[in-house]
């Protein structure tokens, strides 16, 4: 019993410690955004690399997401005789929630782990130390650029996933009935308002920021030793996914708060 309490206490301590460390790290990184010199070249390189690496995955997943969601929702809507509401419903659920969250989770799996492993390896092989000693701040050159790249790339990827997802949804509808793509789009966008789009978009920027940040943090704080590279990649995915859900929860609440007033 005492052991159990001790364990819980340690776990809580470790948790709060981790949260605090991440926040301090976040503060350091954000400070780097405004510190000269700004590494535009590295930012563009990272953005290209991240986008290029993730685009096919996001495209395929987005398409299947829209297709399956529509096929699954169709019988329910049919039983209400409300098939014409299907495009609107799918559009709202993809753009508001499923698009951002699924894409963010995929990016956590793909980008966060990649960054975690890369920085973990750099840490283990003392590349970060070497950079530090040479007067190039790794926080500035390595971390800030990656975090900014994901912050701006994830929203783009989310929009891609939304578009491809809607197209998948159209395909699923077109299988069953004769609906023109223009009518589908008009039905889909009729049910959307800025209240749907703006918080969902703002949310994706935050997702992107934390996907990059958690990956960097986990890599940056990797222990010595080769096995810690794998560990930081793994824990980057887990932590980033968890953070995405927490942010999503907060965002939903925040939106409802704004919507209510």
């Amino acid at each position, binding site marked *: 019993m005492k052991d159990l309490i001790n364990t819980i206490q340690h776990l809580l301590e470790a948790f709060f410690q981790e949260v605090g460390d991440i926040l301090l790290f976040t503060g350091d990184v954000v400070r780097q955004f405004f510190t000269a010199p700004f590494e535009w070249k590295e930012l563009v390189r990272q953005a290209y690399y991240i986008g290029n690496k993730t685009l096919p995955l996001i495209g395929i997943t987005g398409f299947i997401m829209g297709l399956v969601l529509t096929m699954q929702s169709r019988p329910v809507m049919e039983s209400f005789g409300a098939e014409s509401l299907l495009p609107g419903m799918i559009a709202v659920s993809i753009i508001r929630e499923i698009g951002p969250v699924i894409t963010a989770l995929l990016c956590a799996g793909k980008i966060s782990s990649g960054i975690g492993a890369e920085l973990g390896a750099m840490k283990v092989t003392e590349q970060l130390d070497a950079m530090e000693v040479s007067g190039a701040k790794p926080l500035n050159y390595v971390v800030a650029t990656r975090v900014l790249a994901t912050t701006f790339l994830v929203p783009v990827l989310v929009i891609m996933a939304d578009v491809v997802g809607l197209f998948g949804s159209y395909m699923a509808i077109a299988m069953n009935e004769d609906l023109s793509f223009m009518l589908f789009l008009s039905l889909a966008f009729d049910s959307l308002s800025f209240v749907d789009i703006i918080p969902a978009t703002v949310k994706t920027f935050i997702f992107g920021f934390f996907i990059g940040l958690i990956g960097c943090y986990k890599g940056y704080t990797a222990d010595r030793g080769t096995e810690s590279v794998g560990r930081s990649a793994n824990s980057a995915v887990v932590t980033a996914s968890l953070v995405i859900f927490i942010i999503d*929860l*907060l965002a939903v609440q925040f939106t409802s708060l704004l919507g209510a007033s």
Partner: protein
Amino acid sequence: MGKSKSRSFKLGLFVSAGVLLFMLAVYYLGSKQNLFSSSFTVQSRFYDVKGLVEGNKVRYSGIDVGTVSSVKLIADSTIMVELSIDERVREFIRKDSKVEIGREGLMGSKLVFIHPGTAVAGSIGDNGELESVKSVDIEEMLREAQKIIDDGRAVSKNLLAMSRKINEGEGDLARLINDNTITTTLSQTGDELLGIAQNAREITEKVNKGEGDLGRLLNDTTITFQMNRSLSQLEEVGANADTFTQEMAKFGKALNNGQGLLNRLVYDSVMAVHVDTTIVKVGEGVDDVVETAEAIRESWLLNLFSGRKKKKVEK
């Protein structure tokens, strides 16, 4: 290291607690959305709240003005519902405002409607009680509507049958309107009266000539008197026919202008056509009656007292 550890630990604890508090606060706000603005409470008793729960909206003339703050069962058939209402609308909620439980759309969530009261009653105070109105539920409404539709259908069916009967000439009214037997009968009557007059002439002739016992017995003046009486009776018949045509015209007008019960309940173009034809026919009937009356005048009323009677008979 030790210092920085405790610093990040404190920061983590602080921020985690902050996030948790934020979440709880938002949930709390979600259930009581009027937390920020000042509000007051009113109550109302219901027999059935139909699934109303805490947090449902309260509407006044279609505007959201508050939320349901509690739903309590206070006796086996009484439920006390407390409404938390925005202070700013207090002056519009009168003591005699009525509260009703309704539904947002056909499938939406339950809400409470407050119906405006009268200005004379004055605004309600804190914890005031408003009278509840038994609301119509959709099932009940549909049942009522079905009844109304059935009734309406029966009425229109009756009207249809009625107009058809009028048209096809069954019954007294129809016969009066459609048949010209009356005029024929009247003209027959005229003919018969003519016959009588002829007979009378013969009799008078016989009387004049002093033929037979009866002629001798009867006085000329008596016959004249009797003839006079029958004439005045015929005049009455004519007057009655006149009033009847007037009544008929009124009826037609009423039908035409749609003030009658029939037209108000069922507005039917078929019916309107029927009514139209009916009126035309009534008009024709009236014409006929007028003609008849004239014929009567011309045929025997004047003939009886002027020389033309003889002329006509001779002819």
